[in-house]
């Protein structure tokens, strides 16, 4: 086998090992590379930042553990921002297997800001029927969620002073890993009731969200873990939190992994073109 052939046939196990090494080393000794905060992250941050104190912020957990490493850090960062700005946070979701994550985030972040359950934030859990739930919240929150996740009736939750609808919610963020997700909220909540929507999505679907950004249907977008890291940075810069930043910690490894994958592709191509020229 010639050198060029060998170059194109590196064993899979070696590639696996290489990937593992470049990812683990920066975790053990960080390089502290500094990134730039993307425009779309800034748009979402600003949209939430500009909400008046005590306004409702609806956050929807439209994902499950399978995309947790990407979307859960976004959820924590947005919660920290919302609580620091004294917004009233309502959390629900369209994915039944994501319910526990919604609850976890609130349990982690609310005590950091001394927020009281039922008054400052509420967890509504999950209801079946997807579009019927989204449309229902536009008509009556009380009818759609007669009780919260823990079985407390709507009327006994001080966070709701009346039967609210989307009209009372100036902004919502859908953290979405697919369908149902932010597109469901745009199609059913926004086109009929006109709520402003921002989204946090897995990187896989981030490029698909751009038409909605350009048309103004989406206000701000967090695409993948890197955007979560940017949000963590903005939160810290504004003095909202000093908590551990899970996404930021991983950005060095993310950078190096991208670099290695690109180098591998280049090596593959060099081998391919060298062999083609020989033939």
């Amino acid at each position: 086998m010639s050198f060029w052939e060998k170059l194109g046939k590196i064993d899979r196990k070696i590639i696996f090992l290489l990937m593992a090494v470049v990812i683990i080393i920066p975790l053990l000794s960080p390089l502290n590379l500094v990134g730039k905060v993307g425009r779309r992250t800034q748009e979402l941050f600003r949209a939430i930042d500009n909400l008046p104190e005590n306004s409702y912020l609806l956050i929807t957990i439209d994902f499950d553990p399978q995309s947790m490493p990407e979307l859960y850090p976004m959820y924590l960062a947005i919660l920290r921002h919302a609580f620091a700005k004294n917004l009233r946070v309502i959390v629900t979701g369209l994915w039944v297997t994501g319910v526990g994550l919604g609850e976890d985030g609130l349990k982690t972040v609310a005590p950091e800001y001394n927020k009281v359950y039922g008054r400052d934030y509420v967890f509504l859990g999950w209801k079946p029927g997807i579009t019927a739930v989204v449309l229902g919240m536009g008509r009556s929150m009380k009818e759609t969620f007669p009780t919260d996740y823990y079985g407390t009736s709507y009327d006994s939750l001080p966070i709701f002073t009346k039967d609210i609808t989307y009209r009372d919610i100036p902004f919502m963020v859908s953290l979405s890993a697919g369908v149902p997700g932010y597109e469901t909220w745009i199609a059913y909540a926004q086109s009929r009731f006109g709520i402003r929507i921002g989204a946090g999505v897995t990187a896989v679907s981030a490029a698909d969200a751009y038409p909605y950004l350009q048309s103004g249907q989406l206000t701000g977008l967090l695409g993948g873990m890197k955007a979560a890291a940017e949000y963590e940075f903005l939160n810290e810069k504004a003095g909202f939190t000093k908590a551990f930043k899970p996404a930021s910690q991983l950005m060095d490894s993310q950078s190096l992994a991208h670099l290695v994958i690109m180098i591998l592709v280049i090596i593959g191509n060099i081998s391919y073109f060298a062999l083609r020229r020989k033939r």
Partner: protein
Amino acid sequence: MIPQEIWIWVGAILTLFIFSFLYGDNPFYRFAEHLYVGVSVGYTIAITWHNFFYPDLVVPLFKQGNLFYLIPFLLGILYFSIFFPKISWLIRIPMGFVLGYSSGVAIPAILQANIIKQMQGTFLTPDLLKRPDLILWGIVSLIGVVATVIYFFFSREQKGLTKGMANLGIIFLMIGFGASFGYTVMARVSLLLGRLQFLLRDWLGVIK
């Protein structure tokens, strides 16, 4: 109660079971995979009961005697006809109801959100006239959208201008797919990093 440390060990061992697939398919991975399916479905059943069936159906219908809930309850029950082959056709009734509903609400919603609004975005962007470069990119986008749509228009043979536009459409599509691929790489790496963070931080405690 089992202490938290032991639970973390459970999580770590299960994580390693899945990672073992990198070496090759093996019983540990198969066990983890089957466990995941079972636990997920069991979890769904429990949540559906406590979040929905009990507060939204059992309480109003059986405890408060609100007969309004009887019709949807009976329609829903028909889903269970699938377990009895002789009357299994009855399942078509709730399915027809829900499918009709979802198709009906989808038409105006999709029309509004994904066609009308998107067309407005293509032709009438509010900030288009703010800067000369925005006008340029607005025009490029417009051409790109039209070219992509023409590429997907297979009902007529593409020749002349339409062929040229279709080829231009391919260029836009390739950039779009490239962007998606780049982002996909990022997504997969992130998922792996998330798990390594769990193993190294929460389990082994070697990073802070």
